[in-house]
């Protein structure tokens, strides 16, 4: 008897274009509707067709949001899957696939033959393979068949009765076969269903950060596509009509940033999205926004570099890039959401801080989080309801009036009496070029003073476990919150806790005391310990050790448990 209880990892593998994504989308939807907690993440190659990609769907009694290396069930849709994932396949892994497709590469592994294609062909179209596969998975899990049928009815309604009928048949065939496998192989799966999960929303990081942009009242985006930053651009393009968003596909990233800064100048709330390489091209524009004191929000989907690097994989190595981007000195803020909820909230906070302090603000997302799917209650999405910070102007309006906070009220052209000029040269209060040292000092200090307000409003880190009691803290940022939470729970040591930062610059003054007299272990997806260095710089703390990963994959729970156990603390 092979028993699985409370936590399974189901992996779908296949070439790009084979429908793995369709299976994933169907399966997570149906499982969520049945009341299962799910968390899905994927890894894929930078190609349109072929290669070997996989998606991991975790079904768990407790809510989880982390990747595990372990595979309990592997659906191998072609011959490359088993070799591609061999490091993750163990004796306990149950392999399913079409024997004739995978037998050459399966080696020692025992593969349960599932004739996906034959079933689909019996129904008259290989397109039904995906529905068959979902049926098989649900059959093995002993899930409720009826929910799947309802979902298919809804999902394919537009395509007509025949398509609905065939899909339901495909689902039934798969489901029956799945149950048959479970019986034959002695597989027993026990997973808790929760009524409240049925009512939850299910979305990936791209949607979360995109909805956040809508909540932030973003009404303009000019960008150039680059993975994994393109998701939010596509999202806003899809919803531009309902939310009145202007979407401009720029000729290059230099145009995108200058265009978006121009949009803010005229009164829009603009976003640019890109990845590290595209952002390299935007850097002069960041400096421009710094001196002309025009807000700009930059979303960066991080992937491993340098240069083209690993285009579809994950990394956190662009922190230094955005921290120091742009020549000269000017204020900035950097957010790095750790959950879908934080992605939604931080995007709004980014717009709020950019608008209020008239300076560049960054939202750093990791490819891993952008492509991860999770369900949670709708109420977790927190809306800020902030209004535009622009002001009406009088005839004697001075764009760069010197103020105590450093913030000069921001007018826009054509709105009221005053004229609004902005200038990339050093300028006086009227925005005209100056080379006066006295004016330069006053203007430079005015701009830099804004940093005090930005720091006062910095978002606090999230404690993981009992931070006060612990003598050692695992400090993480960005997408690593879920994996640290789960690993610490498994290790269960009183002297260990975690601290997760979703605003990584500036760091809030108040949080400094949390790190006093503690051993600090920095955990991040890069080789240089970029956040560890920033912690030293901002708080003056000593970093005892680092846990770093830079192979393009996310940390797995097992990997962190292992590393934590090996720590000499």
């Amino acid at each position, binding site marked *: 008897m092979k028993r699985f209880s409370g936590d399974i990892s189901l992996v779908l593998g296949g070439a790009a274009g084979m429908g793995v994504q369709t299976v994933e989308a169907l399966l997570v939807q149906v499982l969520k509707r049945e009341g299962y907690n799910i968390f899905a993440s994927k890894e894929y190659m930078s190609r349109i067709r072929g290669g070997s990609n996989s998606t991991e769907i975790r079904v768990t009694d407790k809510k989880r949001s982390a990747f595990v290396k372990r595979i309990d069930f592997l659906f191998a849709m072609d011959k490359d899957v088993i070799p591609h994932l061999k490091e993750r396949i163990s004796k306990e892994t149950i392999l399913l696939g079409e024997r004739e497709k995978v037998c050459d590469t399966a080696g020692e592994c025992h593969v349960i033959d599932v004739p996906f294609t034959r079933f689909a062909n019996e129904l008259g179209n290989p397109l039904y393979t995906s529905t068959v596969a979902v049926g098989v998975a649900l059959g093995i899990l002993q899930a409720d068949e009826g929910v799947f049928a309802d979902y298919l009815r809804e999902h394919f309604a537009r395509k007509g009765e025949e398509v609905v009928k065939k899909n339901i048949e495909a689902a039934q065939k798969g489901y029956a076969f799945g149950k048959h496998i479970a019986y034959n192989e002695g597989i027993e799966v026990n997973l808790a269903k929760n009524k409240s999960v049925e009512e*939850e*929303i*299910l979305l990936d990081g791209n*949607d979360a950060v995109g*909805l956040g942009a*809508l*909540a932030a*009242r973003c*009404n*303009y985006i*000019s960008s150039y596509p680059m993975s994994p930053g393109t998701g939010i651009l596509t999202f806003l393009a899809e*919803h531009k*009509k*309902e*939310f*009145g968003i*202007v*979407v*401009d596909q720029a*000729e*290059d990233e*230099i*145009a*995108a940033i*200058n*265009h*978006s*800064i*121009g*949009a803010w*100048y*005229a*009164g*829009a709330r*603009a976003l640019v999205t890109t990845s590290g390489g595209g952002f390299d091209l935007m850097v*002069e*524009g960041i400096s*421009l926004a710094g001196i*002309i004191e025009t807000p700009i929000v930059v979303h960066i989907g991080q992937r491993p570099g340098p240069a083209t690097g690993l285009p579809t994989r994950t990394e956190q190595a662009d922190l230094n890039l955005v921290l120091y981007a742009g020549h000269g000195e000017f204020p900035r803020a950097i957010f790095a959401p750790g959950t879908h909820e934080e992605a939604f909230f931080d995007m709004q906070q980014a717009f709020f801080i950019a608008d209020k302090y008239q300076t560049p603000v960054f939202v750093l997302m990791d490819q891993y989080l952008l492509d991860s799917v999770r369900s949670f209650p*709708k109420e977790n*999405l927190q*809306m800020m*309801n902030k209004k*535009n910070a622009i002001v009406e102007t009088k005839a004697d309006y001075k764009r760069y009036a010197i103020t105590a906070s450093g913030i000069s009220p921001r007018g*826009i*052209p*054509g*709105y*009221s009496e*005053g*004229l*609004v*000029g*902005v*200038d*990339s*040269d050093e300028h006086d209060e009227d*925005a*005209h*070029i100056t080379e006066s040292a006295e004016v330069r000092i006053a203007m430079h200090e005015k701009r830099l003073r804004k940093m005090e307000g930005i720091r006062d409003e910095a978002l606090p880190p999230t404690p993981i476990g009992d931070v006060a009691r612990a003598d050692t803290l695992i400090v993480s940022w960005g997408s690593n919150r879920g994996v640290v939470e789960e690993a610490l729970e498994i290790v269960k040591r009183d002297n260990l806790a975690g601290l997760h930062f979703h605003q990584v610059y500036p760091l809030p003054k108040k949080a400094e005391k949390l790190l006093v007299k503690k051993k600090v272990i920095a955990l991040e997806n890069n080789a240089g310990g970029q956040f560890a260095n920033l912690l030293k710089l901002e708080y003056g703390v000593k970093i005892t050790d680092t846990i770093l990963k830079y192979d393009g994959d996310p940390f797995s729970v097992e990997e962190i448990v292992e590393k934590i156990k090996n720590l000499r603390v």
Partner: protein
Amino acid sequence: MIDKKLYDMPKGTDMAWCPGCGNFPILNIVKMALSELDIKPQDAVICSGIGQAAKTPHYLRVNYFNGLHGRALPPAIAIKNVSPQLTVIAESGDGDTYGEGGNHFIHTIRRNPDITNIVHDNMIYGLTKGQASPTSEKGLKNPLQPEGVIVDQFNPLAVALALDATFVARAFTGDILQTKEIIKAAILHKGYALVDVFQPCVVFNKQNTYQWFKDKGYYVDETHDKGDKMKALELAFDLNRLALGIIYQREGKPTYETLVREGTEPLHTRSFDKGALEKLIGTYK
């Protein structure tokens, strides 16, 4: 007509241009054009890049966005999209527009926003002290090519025509009235309007002088069919005699701001539909 004095900066405003610079007449012409077209300073925005020409918005009273080298056009398109009621002029030099900003020049023309692009073309780099610009003539001796420019010059009119620009003109700062009429027509034109204005650099360009241009330039007359693109291309390619005036104009091509957005209200006046967002979030169930 609005009093032209409304556009004047206070007396004693420090100006960074050299005595005799061709930028002075262009500044005066732009003020005249705005005043004759009844465009209030509050309703005009001038975008510029970097260079001597790009300092123009500091010398008249309008809204302005003096941004980065080569990047006058992207913010100009954005401003027109956000607030279509504004008159948007992008004004920079030949190096800024055709060199550093070449890619934006190409793709702005493709978009056809309703903006006016005035290029102060002195066929030389002034502010960086006399190097060749994209429009410098082959053979022009300069500090970086002491034996003379070795590559062909950029032909802005021909490029604009090839990209289906809807208004293509060449002007000369030596002729105030003609240039003013060309710029007025460019501002009134619905769509992207290129006015390449020859503007002698009295310090660094000793080859392409006022006299050189007077000898080479001639105005197209009333018989010139502005809608004839092949004829316009022929004129654009002729570098021995330089045709002045509106070389090509076509009305009716949709402008970018009408294609990329709905309505014409400034974006900041749009209200936020929280209900729609809640509804959208609900669809993720």
